[in-house]
């Protein structure tokens, strides 16, 4: 690894930002059409982020600032590990567990900053967000575990390469439909979309962790949210939808999956936090265990 890798990674990071922010903007329009509104312009999300970054803000002490910087730094580092189609700035670092846990640095930073504000709404939101994480991550990890056993690789590019050999029928979502379903449900939890969005519940706990932020802090959290979404959707594209042989293929898959999740989110109500836990441990976890046992014991679906 040398300086060129870092510059390359930074370039991909910018690309990821433009990609995800545009898709968020387009999705605001899609949702608006679902609700029979006209919706904002597609680049409204950029305007919102830069406007927030340019405004004045208040700070509740050094940990409040440090947490935001650590959170955005951690998530941007994670985003740099992600290959975009065939483009990969940091080969050898796209191990799925590394990505899953570096992502946690960002989350921890944000949780710390939110609690550091001294506002109990923020702490309640964080407590819900962590409980949510305990619910959605475990079925997802169990499915990934089965796949690692099947293919003896744990890198995103490795998964993508194996699937690309078999065309559409080689995609893991076709080979392991149960696991794919679980991963999609978990993705909904990771993205914090309905029905798993009780931790930001604006009317109930005043947006939870986000309650005290404004100005540059809020702008940085918007950025963080875009990168986090990019990482999470990319995980699914690489592991279950064959990644992308070209950048265009990757972007199309990415946009379709994100839009699909967003539409699903907008027609569902919200789970209470304990309902979300019970749901994840009853249905997706059971499916994930069945899928992984099928892989480990019978080898069903493994090429």
């Amino acid at each position, binding site marked *: 690894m040398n300086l060129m890798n870092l510059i390359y990674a930074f370039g991909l990071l910018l690309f990821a930002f433009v990609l995800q922010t545009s898709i968020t903007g387009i999705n605001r329009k899609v949702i608006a059409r679902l609700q029979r509104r006209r919706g904002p312009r597609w680049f409204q999300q950029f305007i919102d982020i830069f406007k927030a970054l340019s405004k004045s803000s208040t*700070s*509740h002490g050094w940990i409040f*600032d440090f947490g935001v910087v650590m959170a955005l730094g*951690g998530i941007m580092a994670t985003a740099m590990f992600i290959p975009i189609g065939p483009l990969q700035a940091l080969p050898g670092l796209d*191990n799925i567990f*590394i990505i899953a846990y570096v992502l946690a640095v960002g989350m921890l930073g944000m949780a*710390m900053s939110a609690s550091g504000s001294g506002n109990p709404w923020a702490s309640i939101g964080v407590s819900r967000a962590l409980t949510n994480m305990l619910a959605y*991550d475990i079925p997802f990890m*169990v499915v990934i575990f089965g796949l690692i056993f099947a293919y003896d690789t744990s890198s995103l590019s490795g998964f993508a390469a194996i699937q690309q050999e078999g065309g559409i029928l080689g995609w893991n979502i076709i080979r392991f439909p149960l696991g794919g379903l679980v991963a999609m449900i978990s993705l909904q939890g990771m993205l914090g979309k309905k029905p798993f969005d009780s931790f930001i519940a604006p009317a109930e706990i005043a947006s939870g962790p986000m309650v005290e932020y404004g100005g540059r802090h809020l702008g940085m959290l918007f950025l963080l949210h875009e990168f986090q979404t990019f990482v999470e959707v990319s995980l699914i594209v690489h592991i279950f939808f064959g990644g992308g042989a070209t950048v265009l293929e990757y972007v199309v898959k990415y946009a379709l999956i994100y839009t699909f999740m967003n539409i699903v989110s907008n027609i569902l109500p919200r789970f209470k936090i304990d309902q979300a836990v019970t749901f994840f441990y009853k249905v997706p976890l059971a499916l994930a265990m069945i899928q992984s046992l099928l892989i*480990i014991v019978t080898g069903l679906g493994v090429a």
Partner: protein
Amino acid sequence: MSFDLLILMMFAGAFLAYLISKSNSEAGGISTVVISLISLVLLLLGKSQVGNEFAILYMTFKVTTIGWYFSAVMILVYSMTSFFNSYWMKQMLYPNAYNFLYLFSLAGTVGLFFAADLVTLFIFWEMVVWSSTFIVPLGKSRRAAVVYYTISSIGSMATLYAIMLLHAKSGTFIISEAFAWLATDPTMATIVFFIFILAGLTKIGIFPFHIWLPLAHGSAPHTFSPVLSGGLVKMGAFIAYMSVGVLPAYQAFSGSLKIMGMPIQIYLLMVLGAISIVLGTLMAIKQDDAKKLIAYSSVANGGYILIGILMMDQLSCAGSLMHLFNHAIASAAAFLTIAVVAHRTGTTKISELGGMIHRMPVTFTVYLISIISLAGIPPMGGFVSKWLIIQGLADKGLLFMALAAFFGSIGSFLYVFRPLAAVFLGQLAPKNYELEGATLMMKIPMVILSALIIFFGVFPRYILEVIGEIQSSIGITPIQLEGNAIQAINGLLNSYHVFVIFGFGFLISLAIFMLLQKSRKVGLMDTFTSAEFIHTPELYHYSHDFYAPFERLYKNHPSVENFLVNIANKFDELGQMVNALFFSHKPSITVFWITVVTAIIYLGGARI
């Protein structure tokens, strides 16, 4: 210095500390620092002595890499914690006894790790158990010491029985010969394996022997909890390692029934490890006492260590041996920060604290670093070891163990965050406005431990090289390293690169933050309050029942404690009945016995 002199010096040091404490207890506290630090330096310099054999009286010793590694972990934890000793002398009932036992138990562990025969092993084991038993009640509760001793003696007696059985069958006490003999006899190997490893299970705190950890860790003196959790618990890992690595378990069990590719004997113990992970995590989430919380997290981490050691393979075993070091330093550091808080505020209850970061920023930073490692998040050491264990499990396809490992791993985010949010962050109560932070003497060990946590997280190879030697010594493929990268069969981890990228991301983020408009600093009470007027900071702090919705889901869980208490009550009732029937002065009982005897004579008199 050769290690026989080192062990003797440590025992002499214990007596010296006792004599110094007699005249001045705080000087005695300082003497524990000096003696344990000297021992640490001598041990680290003596790495080249691996392979030497020596004897003290009739006790024989052999310097092995694994013994050296465990001793290094143990002395490191002891020496770092000893910096705190002198501050607690006033609160101790018997300060001189504390200092003596502190060093005596340390010397005992080092002797244990180098023991070459089973009798020596047992003698030193008992030394440690007894000396630590007398330290625990110097804290809050005597009951904790009773439970600790009872559970420990289950292990001790089992070990003693296994040793005698092994000697009767194989005719030798020498560890390597006696264990090698077992490879030929699978039935005897199974029996000895289970009895011998029992001592390890009790010490690590594996379900159902976990009950002593929260009690003893929670109520031991604040300066001894780090040692219990970071150090003494690892003795159990050593016994577990001997039962699987030195005792050729996989060779002996090659003919047994296999479950998911594992011999049933090993798999059963792995299940216990998995239960410990889940149970430790769930219990830690609901604790209100910060020390008990970390104690339950030790139960969970003990589960990881046990599972990894039982695998005895290239990845998981290396991960496990590394994890015990990572957990030792991280949990010692976390306990030390709680000790600082307890020293200044007099409580370890999470719900009574808050906002400590504003009074003790260094302590907060140390706690933050230690929990990042405990939760297994990069770039700290805990991540590397958990990653190795999970990659090893994925290689073998041990799904149920992996399920527990994932649960423990994500669950640890929940429980380590709770003290962070409720003790260190949030509102600072007005009574604590003038609170002082850690003293310089307290900061030294905390900063050293944090530096080690980060260093071995970024450069894990310095530990993994030693672990590779250990693996080669018992004939398994050593962990494969290429520079800073760990090359597993099913994955690659270069933690140095991860660290660099993380640093790069952080710098970009910092640049964005610094370039933008400066923010206005406001107080903690200047927050969004839903238009309520709130003037009491303590009430505006979320710390009670932090995970209430989640805790509700398992509030009616079954508990081993209740089961054991019921058994104890039944036993007590039985005793009372015997007492009432045979040792009573009541006339009614006398009349009862006369009636019974007369009836027997009357009915069966002819035959008597």
